[in-house]
């Protein structure tokens, strides 16, 4: 699943501005159409306006818990694969996310190639 040009549309949700910026640049360089969201609320608003092929969501954010966002996203777009990003300490929460329908999880900081592999896996490419 992708847009007409075959570009993967990715929603990147993380409240760390620096992380979002650099990840956007790196993912876009690898041909992905990345839309950043700096909070859970912003992510949900963006999801209402646009379609995405995959979402990468940080589990720990100021305004909303990752599991909560996952639940809302899954309700809004049931078929949307969600990859969770987590610090080592919230591994348990990531597993919980898997039980709530997340596609997979990755430990932060992660190798970009690993993330790319998961993204391709998620969109079925």
């Amino acid at each position: 699943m992708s847009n007409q040009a075959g570009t993967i549309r990715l929603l990147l949700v993380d409240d760390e501005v620096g992380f979002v910026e650099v990840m956007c640049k790196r993912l876009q360089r690898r041909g992905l159409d990345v839309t950043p969201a700096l909070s859970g609320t912003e992510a949900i608003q963006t999801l209402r306006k646009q379609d995405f092929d995959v979402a990468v969501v940080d589990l720990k954010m100021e305004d909303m818990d990752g599991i909560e966002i996952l639940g809302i996203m899954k309700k809004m777009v049931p078929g949307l694969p969600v990859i969770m990003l987590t610090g080592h300490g919230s591994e348990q929460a990531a597993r919980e996310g898997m039980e709530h329908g997340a596609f997979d999880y990755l430990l932060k900081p992660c190798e970009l190639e690993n993330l790319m592999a998961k993204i391709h896996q998620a969109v079925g490419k």
Partner: protein
Amino acid sequence: MTDKSYYSQLRRSIIGIIVAVSLTPLLVLAALGGYQFHSAYKQKVLAHMEQLVYGHQQSIDAFLSGKLAEIRVLTDVAGFDKVRDDAGLAQLLQSLQSRYDGVFVDLGLVNAQGTQVAYSGPFRLGRADYAHALWFQETMQREYYISDVFLGLRGLPHFIVGVKHSWHGQEYILRSTIDFVAFNRLVENVRIGETGLAYIVSRGGEFQTKPRRDVAMTAEFLNDVLTPEQDLRTHRFGQSQPHVHLGKDPATGEDTVFVTASLKNGDWLLVLQQSQDDAFRLFLRARNFALVGIIISTLAIVFMAFVLSKRILNTVVETDQQKEMMNEQVIEAGKLASLGELAAGIAHEINNPVAIMVEEAGWIQDLMEEEDLRASKEADEVLRALSQIRTQGGRCKEITHKLLSFARKIDPTMKRVHINELIEEMAALSEQRARFANVHIATDLADTLPPIEASPSELQQVFLNLINNAIDAMDHHEGGQLKITTRVENHQAVISVADTGQGIPKANLQKIFDPFFTTKPVGKGTGLGLSICYGIIQKMGGEISVSSVLDVGTTFHIRLPLRSAEGEGRSAS
């Protein structure tokens, strides 16, 4: 206060309490019982002596008054013809002697001038002049009289019973001498115990009977000891009932019981005396027996107090040591818990900037793929620097992951774990590293070790940590031997990991499980490995300890409880 003086004082207190609690009732009972027994026994002994004296007082007085009565009867019944000549008196004397078995020694008739006009008896006393004799004067005044014992004309101790009577208008005294031996026998027979003796003494302090042994009779003794209640210079003995006096016998110096009673209307005093040691002999024997019993009991109590206090003290010392150890463990656990929380917080906070750093380095690496940048002469150096940033970022990641492991264990899921298998796996995993460090890994695993209920990943982490530490300890020490042993001891699985490394200085041993404590060079160790091991083993209800000798080696001992797994095994079967 040092532990030693505290325990010494505690032991003294325990001994004091045991001795006081045990001995006080014993001594109080002994004192009260002894006092009661002594009073009752003394009363009984004195009552017996009083009774004895009273009986003899009665019989002696009866003897004297009987003899006097006989003479009085003679004066009343026998006519002057019978008494005026020796032959008549001889008849009367014979009659008296036959009736009284020789108690009356002689008979004499004395006229008012004191001249004996008739006499019958064994001595030649005819026409004797008694005008100045005390008994003659007393009898002339009182009608009848019983004299004190005196030697008189015959030179032998005797006493006179005299009765004044008037025949044909003339006053005469019919007198008889009483056999001293017979009279003495009345008192001599009073014997009690070994030291008891009786005697009769006159107001002047003269013996009227012969005591069985010497008695130092002085005026002071008579006045102060025998009759303290009256002055004998002006009064007769006034004791119709027996009296008891306790005092010292001047002859022997012993504490003595004196029981006295007056005789002959207060002229004489009957004395029964016995040393107190003799009188209360049975009591003293019982008292000595009780004293020996008390001394033996006291010694036994003191001995038991010493033995018991030692046992109690050993238990107290042991309990104190356990308490101290538990306190240390609680402090250690608390320290680890708070540090764990802190570590988790720091790890989270560091993770994000590190992630950004690593990603930014990755971004630069991405940009370096551009043709113009790659052509730069410093491109290789930039790529090396980027690679270094990413490597160090990776190290930061590793550190934060370890910090988080310290706060939350990797996988706390409990499973049935075979410790021996786990150790074999970990040893195999470290084999390569050991070979590089010239370390030989040997295992000695007990087949009898049952599986335990634990988190395999946590245990793996513990064993791996200990094995790696041991290899590190021997790495710069020309290699060595790493020996891992397991055994079952007191329902516990005991795992020992021993190396032949350089050992750990004593000062470091105390801090070995503290978080962030490391002796490895900067960048080589986080100082968290053993803290994590400590936390894991503590959580499992086990213990981890270390013993080390410098230049010989270090051994870590892990003790894990076997109860839960065994219990499940039993319930499953």
